[in-house]
């Protein structure tokens, strides 16, 4: 009889810190709404085992259709891209627009 205690799966875990997830969300919101990443405020919380995203940022025109239609499309894009990039299941995205900004001309990093 063997008395080995554990089967031997490869050791080690991968931990993605909240900060890393926040950076991803900030970049996605910045890409969707335009403007600078530093203007974007993000929060993550658990929602019954899934991840709920929250972000607020100023909006930079131009819009492709109505404001609301644009923002709902942005929410969908953010949820989908976030799930793709992080592998987390997203329960919802709350977006809050805090104002309108002039377009910035600085080159984008991502």
């Amino acid at each position, binding site marked *: *009889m*063997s*008395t*080995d*205690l*554990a*089967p031997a*799966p490869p*050791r080690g*875990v*991968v*931990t*993605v*810190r*909240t*900060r890393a*997830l926040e950076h991803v969300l900030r970049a996605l919101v910045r890409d969707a709404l335009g403007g600078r990443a530093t203007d974007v405020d993000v929060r*993550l*919380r*658990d*929602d*019954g*085992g*899934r*991840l709920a995203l929250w972000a607020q940022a100023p909006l930079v025109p131009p819009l492709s259709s109505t404001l609301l239609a644009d923002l709902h499309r942005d929410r969908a894009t953010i949820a989908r891209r976030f*799930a793709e990039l*992080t*592998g*987390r*299941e*997203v*329960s919802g995205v709350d977006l809050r627009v805090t104002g309108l900004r002039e377009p910035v001309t600085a080159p984008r990093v991502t």
Partner: protein
Amino acid sequence: MSAPATGPRGLDPVARRAARRSLHRSRSAPAVVTLVVAAVLAVYLGTEAVLRLLDRPALLATPGALADAAVRVLQDPSPAVTAVGVALVVLGVVLLGLALAPGHRSRRAMAHERLAVVVDDAVLASALTRTATTVAGLQRGRAQTWLTRRLADVRLQPTSGVEPPLEQVRAAVAEQVRITAAVPPLRAEVRAAARGSVS
């Protein structure tokens, strides 16, 4: 002398007796204290009785005076006497409890052919926690295991948005419980908390 082995069933008799010593609390300390107190009282009463027979002066009081005092005190119980009585009753209950309760320690025996193997519950619980977190790919602190007599209850705190591989964790934990072969047999339960942790 071959006393019937009263240790965990499922072990061979010799191992059973050996395991029993580790699995149950020893009663020798309370027994020794109780017997020493009883012996001192008996020696004192015996001394007083002998002194009385020899017509020598008593150490504290003659046996007759002691008996009279006891009767007098019981006929007119003051609060102090009641308190002493209550204390004696409590002491008696405690001693009875020590004598009759199984006195389990938080350890358990493992079935083994010749050896008496005894494992601490804390060790077993942390081994199960370790297995669960390793298989689930979580940090060590994200699972907790509670052990009762017959149940190992493993709780995982999953990562928000990541479905914990409960079936795999269940299989791994069950396998480890099976290998451990604790006596009495353990049943493993693995659950995930409803709320996850963001990172």
